[in-house]
């Protein structure tokens, strides 16, 4: 299955409607997009997905971390090493 948002081909079915199987959920392992097969075509079809929201490896690599990851304090670095 192709991820409608980032076109990764590894997207896979992860769940289906517990009661009656009336829908299925899919998930992309790269951009974590989750979708239901019964949603609008603009959400489920890679060709119709709004280009402003499309993702790719380059865009993901350029994203800011929120919040930024602080450096480990010196005293904790030592403890961390000692403790394995």
């Amino acid at each position, binding site marked *: 299955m192709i991820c409608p*948002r980032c076109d990764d081909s590894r997207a896979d079915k*992860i*769940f289906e*409607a*517990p*009661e*009656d199987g*009336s*829908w299925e*959920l899919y*998930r992309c392992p*790269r*951009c*974590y*997009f*989750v*979708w*239901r097969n*019964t*949603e*609008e075509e*603009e*959400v489920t079809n890679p060709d119709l997905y*709004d280009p402003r*929201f499309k*993702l790719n490896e380059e*865009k*993901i690599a350029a*994203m*800011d*971390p*929120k*919040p*930024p*990851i*602080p*450096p*480990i*304090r010196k005293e*904790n*670095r030592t403890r*961390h090493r000692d403790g394995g």
Partner: protein
Amino acid sequence: MPYGSLRDFLVKAEEEGQLLRIKEEVRPEPDIRAAACAAAKIPGGPVLLFEKIQGYRDKQVVMNVHGSWENHALTLDLPKKTTVKEQFHELAKRWDRYPLPAKRVTDAPVKEVILDKDFSLFRELPLFRVNPQDGGFYLSKACTIARDPENPENQNVGIYRIQVKDHDRLGIQLSAQHDLAAYLRKAEERDIPLRVAVSVTNDPIVSFVASSPLKYDEDEYAMIGALRGEPVEVISSERGNLDVPAGAELIIEGEILTRQRSVEGPFTEYTGSYSTSMLQVEIKVDLITRRRDPIIFENLYTGRPWGEIDYLMALNTSLTICKQMKADFPEVDAVNAMYTHGYCTIISSKMRFGGFAKTLGCKLLSTPHGITYPKLIIVVDEDVDPFDLEQVIWAMTVRFRPERDIAIIPNAPASTLDPAHLVRGLATKIIIDATKPVFPDIPLSDAGLVDLPEETAYWMDEIKKRMEELK
């Protein structure tokens, strides 16, 4: 009587004609979002209870709990016709009962079922996409609980947007100015784990306080107690020594994956636009506790204002800022921070001396919420009701002198979600002094204010009464 859970509140809302049951089967998308959006656009719009969700036999969805001033009044256990200003002043009175600490209980329905393996969040909750370009299914009204790693008696209860990324994986947005981001920073600097619990479907007063910008060391549970008039009941999490609301429908427990970030979003924010995708924090879920009965999932529709989120964050934000400002400047009468989560904030106050409005503007910018959110700050005299925009605009037209009464603070800290930013997280703030100039400033000429005719209030009541009789 205060409520103990959302279920208690729904009973009251139904008695008061503010609950609409949607009995037919609805599709998770797009039915729930469309109906929730509509309910909040209708003046006096009801709470919606979706009784049958396609694909789930044992789940229901509740939307628009805070989505009208009538619903808002009922969540505070006030008559549904209580006006906005009356709700504000009632809350201001109750606020002074703080702190009323939580009461610990050892048994609650939320512990009836404990799942610690092979669970799926998609099975436990009837999740749905709030808006079409959201990056996933979101818990947009759940309350997250955590403890300060340095000072564990300091516990935070806050509403942070949460993306369900897998059966046992959540993404969470932690903006740097919020308490949980400060806890995370401490945990990441020490390279130690950080436990969290996520409380789904709560007594509406819990969501109200969880979305209030209290000070870092203030106790949300003790404020919930103050506002409801009785201690709120909490119960211990299964792991990690957290206090979780005993009245919740379902609790998700897990650990933040420190020192890593992954793709999250976009999500439709209170600005009425989609945020961008960013690399954000993840939670590995290891345990769920819940009620045995069919689960009611309460969620929040966010879209173009006004909607439920604007009602939810209106008076709690306004009141919190007002109390924080009054602590240093008792002249402050009221604060209206209802517009786009306070991007526009209106302060009404007595003026101590000329230029004092700018002092108040700067004070606002040093409150926890004011550090980032407000960018358009309007200061009016105490004879102007900041909740009445006609009066505010009147003050701006007759008391504001652009050549003297504007202060601009460039490149100040700002909300990272502001779509108008040039540099994300920075904005230029503007303080507009729409007060009458007082000594040593130059008084306005021709400023003799006309008083309302003495018997206006009598005639207003009289006219309303006679109009009612005509009906």
